[in-house]
């Protein structure tokens, strides 16, 4: 399957806020298929990098380019704390389809199917803000996938979830990957990275320290920082 959005190329990309450099300069090229995981300690700049790639943060200097101009329209983003609209579960799921102008009948069926896929079919009419943390995270993921994005960003989707909920989310992600969605996600859970990643981007304090195929990264980390991080040491 060909993904028209890729590659995304970053050259010396820097994100600043109030004159302060949050991340960068970053040189990075993401291409191909599968799941890229951005690993790194708290404050490394994972969220900022994902948001910049999705166009939510402005790149102050350097370049960040997708293969096509309006790439953002074919992407979706699952935020670190899920944003629940003050609507029912069903209306949250159907919202992106309505924005895209899909026919009413398609919208409802698609939303119902999506709810079934994440086990929320019995809570269709419940206000989404009342769901549990894990259910919210699943709903946010299903809502992000409902328009079949070519690239899906996830920012620590399992940060506050227990084992079973994490497994459910990971199953949905594996399915999306099999369907050809390119996934770029952050985590600081090394176990999750081992389970899911095809490719690793390792960040420390705003810079990309190491990138490469997941297997190589875990088996033979090139940098001392990566080795220390995998070892469970505290990296700053």
């Amino acid at each position, binding site marked *: 399957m060909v993904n028209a959005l890729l590659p995304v190329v970053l050259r010396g990309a820097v994100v600043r806020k109030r004159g302060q450099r949050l991340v960068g300069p970053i040189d990075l090229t993401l291409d191909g298929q599968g799941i890229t995981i951005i690993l790194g300690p708290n404050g490394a700049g994972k969220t900022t990098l994902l948001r910049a790639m999705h166009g939510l943060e402005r790149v102050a200097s350097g370049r960040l380019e997708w293969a096509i101009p309006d790439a953002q329209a074919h992407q*979706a983003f699952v935020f670190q704390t899920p*944003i629940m609209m003050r609507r029912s579960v069903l209306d949250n799921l159907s919202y992106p389809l309505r924005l895209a102008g899909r026919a009413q009948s398609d919208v409802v069926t698609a939303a119902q199917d999506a709810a079934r896929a994440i086990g929320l079919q019995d809570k269709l009419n419940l206000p989404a*803000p*009342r769901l549990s943390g894990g259910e919210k995270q699943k709903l946010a993921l299903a809502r992000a996938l409902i328009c079949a994005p070519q690239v899906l960003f996830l920012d620590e989707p399992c940060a506050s979830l227990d084992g079973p909920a994490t497994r459910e989310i990971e199953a949905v992600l594996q399915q999306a990957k099999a369907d050809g969605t390119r996934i770029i996600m952050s985590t600081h859970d090394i176990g999750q990275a081992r389970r899911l990643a095809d490719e690793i981007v390792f960040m420390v304090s705003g810079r990309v320290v190491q990138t490469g195929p997941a297997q190589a990264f875990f088996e033979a980390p090139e940098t001392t920082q990566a080795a220390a991080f995998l070892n469970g040491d505290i990296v700053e």
Partner: protein
Amino acid sequence: MNEIAQGVEAAFWLLVTFDRDLAEIALRSLQVTVTAVLIASLIGLPFGAWLAVRRFRYRRLAIAVLNALMGLPPVVVGLIVYLLLSRSGPFGVLGLLFTPTAMIIAQVIIVAPLIASIAHQSTRELWAEYHDLLISLNASRWQRIKTLLWDGRRALITAALAGFGRGIGEVGAIMIVGGNIDHATRVLTTAIALETGKGDFALALGLGFVLIGLALAVNIATHMLSRTEREGKW
């Protein structure tokens, strides 16, 4: 004290005998203010939401102006509308002065800034919550505004009610542009002013109680309507 008791009694009799003049005046009050609030909401709610989602250079200034407009003295609004609609004014040919339409125009001007300002405050909070999601989903500006208005509708009903409260009790502007003409532009507030001037305090108070009752009834009805629609708090 005696006068208040007499006022209660007068109101009671006005109501139980279903005084036709009273019904006419009360209905006109309702008609003028409800129409004005509807028009002002149509303008003020989207404008408030637009101010919340739109970043432009003079946004702060626009918000400051809006908040200042909230405090417009109704009498001055009445005077300006009077000058615009009077025979020699720019809109004199329309012949609107001393009609309910003129009163509606004046009330729209008085009420719209209030509705817009309250709408702005509540949609701004919701926008902070939704911002990343709606940007990520590529919602157009109009889609963003519609979403905020819909999901924030409970607060917006309160905004409209505040506008209604300000409009229904307003006397200065509608007195000037309406003229308090019997069977044409007389409403509860102008009738109260008239009866007070004539020294008929009992009737004035009676009308006052009817006015309060009307305002309460509209508030309660609106709240009940919005309650039946909701299944629970978010």
